[in-house]
């Protein structure tokens, strides 16, 4: 059951009693509350009322909402048009710091951080924004600040992925520089195949590299029917397999030599028929500065069998080929 917050609200905001703010007219000073659902808070307000008033400041004829973005949305969900507010005098110093501090006690999602940081830089300038960065949990690293600034330019779909942890900040910042059609194509792919965060970075690397080298756009590359075919072929084995297959297709296109080396090495390793208790570790980077062989056994008899096999190993052409592929 909803509880009235205040007596009847007059239509004209100027006619509101002191301490009441017209919700529709408030402009968010900082874009906090992105991707935070307001329903639960609305429910709570309807039960126990608004426990903290909004923090508002007049700027000429405008009303800035310094703190309470989520509360305002929750109240609007409840059909309220005004709410109790503390009005700061227009020239209050550090008003923005108050706005930032209001959010200190709760987890702020990465999209909020990015959006707020960008707003601070754009409205207050880099130097003043940097003074406030600590309140936003942004450390001193200029790279991190740059990435936050860039990531804030993502369209809502990308910001949502960032807020929900489906896109890491570095990837989001890169993606924000892409044309919209390419962003859409890759966000669609991420939603469909749900790669891990590290694989998302690999996707972006591959797409950016190929786009640059082949003069195509990432969207063009992703519309290649062969990608869909590799994905479809592996689909029966589950979404991770489909994702890996599609990514592998791009990897082979980007790195034909490495793909060939991998293939050849895998075939040689298979042909070697290692006993299950032996593991030969080959350098995945093909530098081959060192190799290692691990044997697992639980008694002397097992070890004897392995030792016999080990003695014969140097004589096997396949083994020599694995260690010395210079004749490839």
């Amino acid at each position, binding site marked *: 059951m909803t509880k009235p917050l205040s007596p009847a609200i007059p239509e004209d905001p100027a006619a509101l009693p002191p301490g009441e703010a017209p919700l529709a007219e408030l402009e968010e000073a900082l874009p906090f509350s992105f991707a935070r659902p307001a329903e639960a808070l609305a429910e709570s307000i309807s039960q126990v009322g608004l426990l903290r008033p909004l923090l508002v400041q007049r700027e000429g004829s405008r009303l800035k909402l310094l703190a309470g973005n989520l509360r305002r949305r929750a109240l609007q969900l409840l059909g309220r048009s005004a709410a109790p507010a503390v009005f700061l005098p227009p020239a209050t110093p550090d008003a923005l710091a108050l706005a930032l501090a209001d959010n200190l006690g709760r987890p702020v999602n990465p999209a909020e951080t990015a959006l707020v940081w960008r707003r601070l830089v754009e409205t207050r300038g880099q130097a003043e924004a940097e003074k406030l960065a600590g309140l936003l949990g942004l450390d001193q690293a200029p790279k991190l600040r740059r990435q936050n600034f860039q990531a804030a330019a993502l369209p809502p779909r990308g910001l949502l992925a960032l807020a929900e942890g489906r896109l890491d900040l570095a990837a989001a910042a890169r993606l924000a520089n892409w044309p919209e059609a390419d962003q859409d194509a890759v966000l669609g792919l991420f939603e469909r195949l749900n790669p891990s965060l590290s694989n998302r970075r690999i996707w972006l690397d591959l797409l950016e*590299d190929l786009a*640059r*080298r082949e003069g195509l756009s990432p969207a063009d590359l992703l519309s290649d029917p062969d990608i869909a075919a590799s994905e479809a072929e592996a689909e029966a084995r589950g979404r991770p397999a489909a994702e890996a297959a599609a990514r592998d297709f791009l990897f082979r296109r*980007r*790195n*034909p*030599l*490495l793909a060939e*080396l991998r293939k050849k090495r895998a075939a040689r390793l298979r042909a070697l028929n290692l006993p299950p208790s032996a593991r030969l570790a080959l350098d995945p*980077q*093909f*530098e*081959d*500065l060192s190799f290692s062989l691990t044997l697992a056994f639980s008694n002397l008899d097992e070890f004897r069998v392995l030792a016999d096999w080990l003695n014969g190993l140097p004589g096997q052409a396949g083994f020599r080929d694995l260690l010395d*592929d*210079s004749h*490839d």
Partner: protein
Amino acid sequence: MTDGPPAGRPGPVWRLRLEDDFRDTPLARNLARDMTPERQEPLSPADYGRFGPRDILVTRHRGRFLKPCPGTPGYNCCGLHIFHFGLGCPLGCRYCILAAYLDTESLVLFGNLEEGLAEFAALLDRPAGERPLRFCTGEFTDSLLLDRRTGLAERLVALAAAREAVLELKTKTDQVDHLLGLDHRGHTVISFSVNSPEMARAEEGRAAPLAARLAAAAKAARAGYPIGLHFDPLIHYPGWEKGYAETVELIGQTLAGARVAWVSLGCFRYLPRLKEIMLARHPGTGIFNGEFILAGDGKRRYPRPLRTMMYKSLAENLARVLPAETAVYLCMESPRVWRDVFGHDPGPYGLTALLDRQALISRQ
């Protein structure tokens, strides 16, 4: 503020910024002969990023001036020492490793260079060890870019000539005229970094054109200097084989009869963060288009078989145009690659010994 381009291409007009401590040093006086100095507050390392490719900053060096080449574990090192006189380079090569370390293309020169020269002379005056001291100046900047004005090489050439030392000046400019009349006694190797004509044009910024570098090498050779050539970085691109063969051909024509002490070969390698920096500065660069692995030293390199193939191709072509006694070596490569390219691995000390021998041949 009245200086011309640094090398063979139109480049920035220099702006000279001097910290007060160094207004009255030989270096500052030399530079101020044709540039108007501007006052510069003392710098901290974080300040470097504020300057651009047209700035020359004269500041204090706080570390040692002479350092051994850092080398890379697992890869054979050439055993060179570095005389550290400055930092940064405005030539703007797209692959320049300095970009990954320094946030600027400005040139920083050390105003307390006299201290460095004294440190160095004292070291050279110690009883000679078993091997000559081979040292260079061009690890963190170009050796000769501003040398006409700083006069540093002349002093180092004289130091090396009088002692058990061999100096290597490494450059991508054609600025050698001021060195031609010096009494070097074969103790100074003038080295030129070379590349294929396409790569030199497209990826080496304001460096002198390849033909100008080789013409300068020929001039230096006529003045009796042993010559060094560094094919570093070799870049894998469509047509690389033909491109590098052309450069070798050009070397054969330009440097016939010259004493080429050594030629190094090193494939393009980079710290991963360089890619982001360079693509932001030069979106059109093609140097990151190749295939790369991540090596144990944290750098990206071409896959070993590809490097081997490139080295072999270069080594075979070079053998056709250079005398057999020229040392062709691999820069920062693994024993495995050495064996695959040359059939032997010189080992960690073998490469140093080879270059020491080469350095000694021309000395008088």
